């Protein structure tokens, strides 16, 4: 729909220009026909070795588009011997823009794709819109070091069609008020039972010492991010598991139901925010920032922001993290996909293999330490300075708007690949945890799999299970109701998803 509207809008502007004969409008239409992301098509075959590589890129950004003549861009261009023409698209409308761009047929040479497993992207990949880059990766020093396991996750029909932007595998942990923990006289939780005791004390033992029982142990939000972490602690699979050569969803595992019962206990004893099913992510964060709740289960990187915000409002407030909780199956944590979005290279704009290799070379060079530091720290003297031979931000906000929300997004290496700077002990602690936890991260085997039913009906199937889970925790349904929801899920297409995932799994691992 969107595509057509835009297309007709363009035509409309042109038509108006012609009809009214005003040069101004005609000029407008003319411009509209030349999307910013497409570079000149000439000069691709000649003089490549000498002249800079002309590269049109479509990428997302979080704040405002940087100027093309910015220092950072000039440095990148000089280092990689390229001339960049980047169209920056706001993150909020990025998916739409990708769909429209694919539809328009005028593709940039490099396109960042967020929803690489959506049916429309899969269809484009299968109809040969993008280059397969698998055979070339090992020729580049930096790219060849990228995780093969993550490449497996982005494969379509066993082939690699892009460069992923690497992210940490497992960043989840418990963020809690360590000053409260001291006040109630408990120590860092090591098991699920410890965790329960801490949450109970945070709720009932007046941890903020204001004489009122006005705190709650755990805060959560409607998507229940924390639940999956707890379930993982208790031994449940991460999303899917392989059982007797077949894929099986996590909620069929008895451990998952145990985690539901644990949450129900927390709910019944009022140790968890009672209205969490209506809360959004920000409201959840507010609960911590306003000193209403003592613990949240989320990305541990948030801990630094909590600490900063709490110190302002409550002098003496302290935040700590813990990520290893002993469960029946030892220490576990859910692993992520290991990437966020994929750079893909359309064949219609990248005409030759030679050119593709040059583009891959660009990304390889962008992963050199010099470039990683430029993208991760900005320009010395402007964004950061050296202190004790470690980089420190002079103005992190300036860095975020000028580099972090835009150029940094071009990087395929992890954010943490830059030279480590001065960090608070808290940041160091969770940084180490995130690195260490990769070894206990439970992989989701379905990441590498494609199921047509999942791509078309996944969003219909998901709420069936999630709603029943929430209702069970709130006591609005019982175990029979939960079993019925699973039956409904199976009938609505779940059985087909299992079948398709299993078939694909067998095909890959045969």
């Amino acid at each position, binding site marked *: *729909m969107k595509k057509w509207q835009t297309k007709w809008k363009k035509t409309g502007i042109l038509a108006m220009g012609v*009809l009214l004969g005003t040069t101004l409008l005609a000029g407008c239409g003319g411009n509209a026909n030349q999307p910013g992301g497409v570079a000149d098509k000439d000069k691709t075959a000649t003089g490549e070795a000498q002249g800079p590589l002309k590269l049109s890129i479509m990428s997302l950004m979080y704040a405002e588009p940087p100027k093309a003549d910015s220092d950072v861009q000039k440095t990148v261009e000089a280092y990689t011997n390229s001339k960049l023409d980047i169209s920056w698209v706001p993150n909020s409308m990025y998916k739409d823009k990708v769909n429209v761009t694919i539809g328009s047929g005028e593709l940039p040479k490099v396109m960042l794709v967020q929803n690489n497993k959506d049916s429309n992207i899969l269809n484009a990949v299968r109809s040969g819109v993008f280059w397969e880059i698998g055979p070339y990766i090992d020729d580049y020093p930096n790219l060849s070091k990228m995780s093969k396991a993550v490449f497996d996750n982005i494969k379509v029909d066993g082939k690699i069609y892009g460069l992923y932007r690497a992210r940490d595998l497992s960043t989840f942990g418990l963020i809690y008020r360590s000053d409260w923990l001291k006040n109630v006289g408990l120590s860092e939780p090591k098991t699920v039972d410890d965790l329960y005791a801490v949450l109970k004390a945070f709720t009932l033992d007046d941890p903020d010492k204001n004489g009122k029982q006005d705190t709650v142990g755990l805060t959560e939000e409607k998507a229940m991010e924390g639940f999956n972490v707890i379930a993982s602690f208790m031994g449940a699979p991460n999303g899917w598991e392989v059982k007797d050569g077949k894929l099986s969803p996590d909620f069929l595992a008895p451990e998952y139901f145990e985690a539901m019962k644990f949450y129900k206990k927390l709910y019944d004893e009022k140790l968890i925010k009672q209205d969490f099913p209506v809360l959004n992510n920000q409201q959840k964060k507010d609960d911590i920032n306003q000193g209403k709740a003592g613990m949240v289960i989320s990305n541990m990187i948030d801990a630094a922001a909590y600490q900063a915000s709490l110190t302002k409002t409550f002098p003496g407030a302290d935040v700590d993290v813990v990520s290893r909780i002993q469960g029946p199956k030892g220490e576990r944590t859910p692993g992520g996909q290991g990437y966020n979005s994929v750079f893909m290279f359309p064949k219609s704009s990248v005409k030759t293999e030679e050119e593709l290799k040059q583009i891959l070379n660009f990304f390889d060079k962008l992963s050199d330490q010099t470039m990683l530091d430029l993208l991760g720290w900005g320009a010395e003297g402007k964004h950061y300075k050296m202190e004790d031979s470690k980089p420190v931000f002079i103005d992190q906000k300036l860095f975020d708007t000028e580099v972090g929300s835009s150029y940094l997004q071009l990087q395929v290496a992890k954010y943490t690949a830059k030279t480590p700077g001065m960090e608070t002990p808290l940041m160091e602690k969770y940084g180490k945890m995130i690195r260490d936890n990769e070894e206990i991260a439970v992989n989701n085997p379905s990441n590498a799999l494609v199921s047509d039913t999942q791509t078309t009906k996944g*969003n219909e199937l998901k709420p069936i299970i999630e709603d029943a889970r929430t209702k069970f925790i709130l006591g609005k349904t019982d175990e029979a109701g939960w079993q019925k929801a699973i039956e409904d899920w199976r009938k609505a297409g779940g059985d087909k998803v299992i079948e398709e995932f299993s078939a694909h799994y067998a095909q890959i691992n045969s």
Partner: protein
Amino acid sequence: MAETTTLPVRGTGGQPGSRKLARLMKNKWLYLMALPGMLYFIIFKYFPMWGLLISFQEYQPSLGMLGSKWVGFDHFHRFFFDASFGMLFRNTLLLALYNLVFFFPLPILLALLLNEIRREMFKRFIQTIVYVPHFVSWVVVVGISYIFFTTEGGIVNDILAAVGLPKIDFLMSEEWFRTMIIAQVVWKETGWGTIIFLAALAGVDQQLYEAARIDGAGRLRQLWHITLPAIRSVIVILLILRLGSFLDTGFEQIFLMLNSMNREVGEVFDTYVYNVGIQQGQFSYSTAVGLFKSVIGLVLVVGANKLAKKFGESGLF
């Protein structure tokens, strides 16, 4: 503008063709003024309608509309026989119905009340106040609702508790969902909805009131015999227009109010299209659902228009 074209044209005579041309020339400025409007409708409303064709295709952006495969009524079949179709239809219909019954009359009532205020200053003041909620975005309205109605320190529940009543879970129950939605709409849009009615009321001939007063009619009599008949046609036209978007329950508000505990009564066509169609990039399927909604709207508009004409109103067309 339509009226001016029927003005008698003199001094041209001859064949009908040249007379038409002459008429066109005479009113050329009017036609020119109408041109942007016409272009607007052609370009932005009629051209995009071709896009509806993709609801009969397996539309793939990479292949375009010409290259995509035709699948006939497959998407409609999937939609109508989907397990959730009954629920979606019921939820949408009920919300639309409640909206019509409980919300639609309120702006009329408020406009009538405002009309009775004799002190101009006070009237203006009230008008401005009641318009304000319209400009508050749904995100904020839903946020305010949370602050008022949550069980955890929500003002309303605190008051209930203070007078010894049990807490009511307004936000997480199926029973209260529709009430909350309609109440939010009433709060946000009632004031704004009065604008057209107030304009219609301003056009009522003051002499009629004078005459009625001389005949001894009181306020209520005047209301019943003069005001209401005067704005009746406006009410009917707005009602017909409303029916055209009958199944548009509004996406943002409902999407924000939805949660696991009330999805059973809260999921409507608009949220379904977002979840299943837009988010998963299934453009053809989304279009098919949208087309279905539009057809229902069209049927309702034509039906209501016929009905209005039967009752002696001028109707919409």
